[in-house]
């Protein structure tokens, strides 16, 4: 199904011998990230815990894209960052190319960093405004001693070419570029380190539709050319659907549903997933007239004090007593399709949000 990876440069020395192509590139187990924050209230100093990520399992194969969707604050970015150990997980393990990242020393980790990179939502903010594009792209080459000095310039131009920017961009500053172009620079910088894995943290959310399409096309092309693996974070199901092989749906720090892309888009099982689908605006007046009346009500509860049992129960039209008390496990409902809902069967039979999903196309 997927073409063989064709990494243009020689594999890095960091690649461990134990890792084989069949093994998942990235495995995350029981990932928990809690933040200690100072509590609210002016009276007593109270420490409170933000349950940003609360037990997430993921795995991602070589040259694959895993999509991660969910609402704001559900922990997508935190997951993305802690996978790269930019955030120390409170618990859980992250294995990359067979190596347990949480056990690595700072030094080893920093050597491994170039194999896994990140692209941010805010294209401009993720680029140091004081550095020229050339400096930005040269930095990874420099810190990882990837390319000898005299070749650096050439390599930078190669990278610009790769992401479709003119070579005269080298001496200009990020703010002289549009959002879409900045995102290309961000991508080029990530690629400069010759990674095999990219976390894409809402890389197109801030962009206009036309530019969004350009960037998504670029990412797709790059994946095919370089054999990259993506963890693609977004809140737009349509975009995720075009990009991902597998999709995970997150709600309040937990994965509520994870499946092969087609399986999920054809038959979402979790009421929350169904609600998300129904909320996607469809650019077709005929269709959008039909649905849209049934929307997910309420708001995402605070991650300081997540609801007991099923975390979605406060907003779920199917919620019963059991949902309030008993936390549903992530169970397999179809091959490669797992759902955390006590009443998944019922939800599939009788989608409370009557979504337009894919039926019409």
């Amino acid at each position, binding site marked *: 199904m997927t073409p063989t990876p064709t990494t243009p440069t020689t594999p890095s020395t960091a690649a461990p011998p134990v890792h084989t192509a069949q093994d998942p590139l990235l495995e995350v187990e029981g990932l928990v990230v809690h933040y200690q924050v*100072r509590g*609210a*209230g*002016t*009276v007593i*100093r109270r420490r409170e815990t933000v349950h940003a990520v609360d037990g997430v399992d993921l795995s991602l194969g070589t040259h694959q894209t895993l999509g991660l969707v969910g609402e704001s604050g559900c922990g997508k970015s935190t997951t993305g960052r802690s996978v790269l150990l930019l955030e120390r997980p409170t618990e859980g393990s992250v294995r990359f190319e067979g190596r347990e990242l949480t056990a690595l020393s700072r030094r080893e980790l920093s050597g491994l960093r170039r194999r896994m990179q990140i692209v941010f939502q805010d294209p401009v903010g993720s680029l140091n405004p004081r550095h020229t594009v050339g400096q930005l792209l040269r930095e990874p080459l420099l810190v990882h001693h990837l390319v000898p000095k005299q070749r650096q310039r050439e390599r930078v131009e190669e990278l610009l070419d790769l992401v479709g920017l003119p070579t005269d961009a080298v001496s200009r500053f990020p703010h002289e570029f549009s959002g879409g172009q900045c995102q290309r620079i961000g991508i080029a910088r990530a690629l400069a380190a010759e990674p095999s894995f990219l976390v894409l943290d809402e890389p197109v959310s801030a962009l206009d539709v036309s530019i969004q399409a350009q960037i998504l096309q670029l990412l797709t092309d790059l994946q095919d050319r370089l054999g990259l693996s993506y963890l693609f974070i977004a809140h737009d199901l349509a975009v995720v659907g075009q990009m991902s092989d597998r999709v995970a749906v997150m709600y309040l720090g937990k994965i509520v549903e994870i499946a092969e892309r087609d399986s999920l888009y054809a038959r979402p099982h979790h009421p929350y997933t169904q609600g998300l689908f129904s909320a996607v605006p469809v650019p077709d007046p005929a269709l959008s007239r039909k649905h849209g009346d049934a929307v997910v009500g309420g708001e995402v509860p605070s991650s300081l004090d997540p609801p007991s049992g099923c975390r979605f129960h406060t907003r779920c039209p199917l919620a019963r007593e059991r949902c309030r008390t008993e936390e549903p496990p992530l169970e397999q409902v179809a091959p490669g399709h797992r759902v955390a809902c006590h009443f998944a069967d019922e939800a599939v039979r009788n989608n409370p949000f009557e979504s337009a999903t894919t039926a019409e196309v």
Partner: protein
Amino acid sequence: MVAYLARRFLTLLLVMFVMTMLIFGLMHAVPGGPFDQTQQPLPGPAMANVMRKYGLDQPIWRQYLNWLWALLHGDLGIPFEQPTMTVTGLIARAWPITLAIGGLTILVSYVGGLVMGCAAALRHNTWLDWLLTSAVSTVGVALPNYVVGFLLISLFSVKLGWLPVGGWGQPQDLILPVVAFSLYPMALMARYTRASTLEVTYADYVRMGRARGLSERRLTVRYILRTALIPLITIMGPNIPNILTGSIFIEATFALPGLGSYFTTASLHRDYPLILALVLIVAVLWGTCYILSDVAYTLVDPRVRLEGLSR
């Protein structure tokens, strides 16, 4: 709130402890003691008598402990400069004067600075803005207050004879020193006010207020100024102790028998108990202003929680 205050208070105590210890050590390391100002050295036995009389013959750590112990009993000791008074009494006599001048200065400079800053910001990029920001605040910042004081006296007292040349006792005595003292904080205040007002002027919620048909006056007062002035509390706070403990320059120029001059005389005379008391005053005042401005900030700005504040 209580816990917050208690915690702040405890750290303040700790800080003051360390600070007084440092100052104490420093004071004694400095050449010359409190009784070395005589033109002829005191003969040995006479000097020994003096030292014994004031407990200065004991080792330093002992002296510090003695001082601390007395302090715990509310006794700040006896100033060498005024052996017939207590330090407390001396401060109680001098400080009210400084407080009066300082209080008025704070009032004048903060109100004046706020008005000027607001005016400049609201007339952003006009001649008024230019005049207020460049000219006035530069004069305020670029002229030391004793020079201003000297100029004021030359003009208003000697030449025109309108105002007293200095001294203490009648209300007119306050005018010139307060003006001279106010200029610098006023200039600073104007600068900060302008910046913070400008920041708010283009905020979304001001635009939205306008879109709801609110008058410019209302927008200025309730939308712009009200939010713009809040952060100034944190700027105003730390300035207050400096002003309330007086300026030796202002006091000397205007012959005010305030506390400020003690900051120099006490250290010139090596008046150890007085120096320590002054240091304590500043520390307590500073700590209080700091805490108060934090608390005030949380009271006026609903967005801020006390615990979240960190500077």
